[in-house]
């Protein structure tokens, strides 16, 4: 037992150190002034928007799309996947009014989900670059131009990744916590890792990809529920880079109810479990920059989780008086540092994004004990459904996120 606790403490301390370094690097990259290099010729770009029953949000999305300030040729494709609501009417009205906006009715097919719809969109378009926006996104006018400039100006870039912000952040405590999570993710996983390792991760939306890159790595994997993470790995495996452009902002709606969040995150986590399974099936995932992604995946979903469970178990057992430690390790300091690092990340993200306010800082203080602990429940829920589906040889259903 003493040995397990010692290993547990050492691993946690190293994780704390790693995230501390990542935070500082992310902060540095995020606050550094970047020189914008305009292009002589802007390549043609296709905007792909997969949509299924998006009547509540699609008007705002299309309004933002037609206001994109892009100096080159731009074609917008609303990929309507059998919507039964007013998505059809709204899309048709926009398509009749704007010459470069096309309402595409995607043929029926299996498996259902975003990947298949995107593959269809790619088959009917042919620009040099394509950018994906979710149907609830409102990109800022300059965001696409910034993504293209970064992709063209960065040597060996296979695309570029922008920044996702929460449009309904002030709705309730849950949306504030989701927004904070996104801000921390952008700061650490994106800015910090790009600064340290030159690796970026596609975020599913507000992401630009070079058509030739996709031709090289193959279409979207229709069975991947985290299609963005899966495509990131394939692009990285070809030695191509995905630069992070924090100034390219899109505003996205996040779940306002816990039930909706649980469904959405279960899908995301199942997608990550699918990736983990792939990672353990081939050595290809441990070469070059792929190693950074693979280790990150293993660190978060296996190492961190296992040690977190040991830590929680030890804490509860200690509280109940079941076990008493006969080893002198600074558990209290480790716990304090974990909390401190997380809270500093939260504050740093808020300061960088200009979202620091008394209520948001309070959210930063309490998220560690509330929202973050939800991860454990979500992980085991996802694992349960994932194993169930695998045993029954079923294709995991794509649960669409409900809009508000």
């Amino acid at each position, binding site marked *: 037992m003493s040995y397990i606790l010692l290993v547990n403490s050492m691993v946690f301390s190293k994780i*704390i150190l790693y995230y501390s370094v990542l935070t500082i690097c992310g902060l540095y990259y995020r606050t550094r002034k970047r020189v914008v290099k305009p292009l002589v010729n802007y390549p043609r770009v296709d905007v792909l928007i997969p949509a299924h029953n998006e009547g509540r949000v699609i008007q705002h999305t299309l309004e933002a799309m037609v206001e994109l300030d892009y100096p080159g040729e731009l074609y917008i494709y609303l990929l309507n996947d059998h919507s039964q609501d007013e998505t059809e009417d709204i899309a048709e009205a926009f398509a009749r009014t704007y010459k470069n906006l096309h309402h595409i009715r995607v043929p029926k097919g299996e498996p259902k989900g975003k990947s298949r719809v995107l593959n269809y969109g790619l088959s009917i378009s042919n620009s040099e670059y394509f950018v994906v926006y979710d149907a609830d996104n409102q990109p800022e006018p300059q965001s696409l131009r910034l993504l293209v400039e970064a992709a063209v100006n960065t040597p060996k870039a296979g695309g570029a990744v922008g920044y996702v912000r929460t449009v309904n952040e002030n709705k309730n405590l849950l949306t504030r916590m989701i927004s904070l999570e996104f801000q921390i993710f952008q700061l650490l996983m994106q800015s910090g890792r790009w600064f340290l390792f030159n690796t970026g991760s596609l975020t599913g939306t507000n992401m630009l990809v070079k058509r030739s890159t996709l031709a090289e790595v193959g279409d979207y994997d229709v069975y991947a529920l985290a299609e963005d993470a899966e495509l990131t790995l394939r692009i990285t495996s070809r030695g191509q880079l995905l630069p992070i452009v924090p100034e390219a902002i899109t505003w996205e709606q996040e779940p306002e109810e816990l039930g909706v969040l649980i469904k959405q995150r279960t899908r995301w986590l199942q997608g990550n479990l699918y990736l983990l399974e792939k990672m353990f099936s081939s050595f290809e995932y441990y070469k070059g920059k792929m190693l950074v992604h693979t280790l990150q995946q293993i660190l978060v979903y296996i190492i961190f989780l296992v040690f977190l469970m040991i830590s929680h178990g030890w804490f509860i057992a200690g509280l109940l008086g079941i076990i008493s430690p006969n080893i*002198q390790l600074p558990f209290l300091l480790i716990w*304090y540092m974990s909390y401190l690092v997380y809270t*500093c990340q939260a504050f740093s993200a808020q*300061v960088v994004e200009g979202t620091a306010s008394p209520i948001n800082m309070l959210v930063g203080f309490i998220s560690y004990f509330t929202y973050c602990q939800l991860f454990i429940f979500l992980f085991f829920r996802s694992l349960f459904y994932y194993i169930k589906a695998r045993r029954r040889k079923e294709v995991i259903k794509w649960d669409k996120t409900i809009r508000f």
Partner: protein
Amino acid sequence: MRRRQLLTLLQGGQLIVFYITISYILQSMVPFFIFQYMALMLIFIFVKSIKGFVLLIAYTFVMGTGYLLLGFIKSYGILLQGEAIIFHLAFIINASLIYTTTYIAKGLEEENLILRKKVDELEDYVGPSNLLTKQEFENRSSLIRSAMARRGEEGYQIIISVEKMSPYIQKSTFNTLTNIALEVFRSQYDLVGKWDDDTFILLLQNTDEEGMRIALNRYLSKIKLKMDLEEENLIIKTQEIGSKDKGMAI
């Protein structure tokens, strides 16, 4: 709460926290603490807010990691760990207060400068004199030019600069010359305005070249009565306005 009030409150808090820290918490390491305190103050004064924030976060992590390492190396028991956490909190609370008060004060100072500049722009006259500000001169000059164009009149703009004068007497010369200009030229009819710190501008309306030269010579004579000025140190440019737009240097 206004930022000024918040700053006062925080500065009060900073003093109290400092006193508590050195008297009750970090008594065993007062010199080390004060050294850090002063170093942080100096750093925050000289670096920009966002860089200061990165440093504050780095400081928090480095101190925390230091205590964690000590905890491992010296096998801290629960009491010592608790004490280490309190020590660390004392360090970072003091550092955060220094950061906050320094940057709120710097922010207020910058805001004050910006507002001062805006007020100067909005004022019609420079200080207590009757010399027009650049913006006011441009506004009035634009109206006069339109009226002159409508009436088919001609006029002149005279730009006078003291930039070639010795820096020691530039300011006083500028003030004397503009005061004389305000006396000599028709106050209700012509305009005298400040262009920049060493240049001012005169607008003479409904005047031909001869009239302009008479007025200018009257002005120069008046200057000679008061000052022993070498004319080559004064840059005078004239520009015809109204129907024709010509410029010449005298």
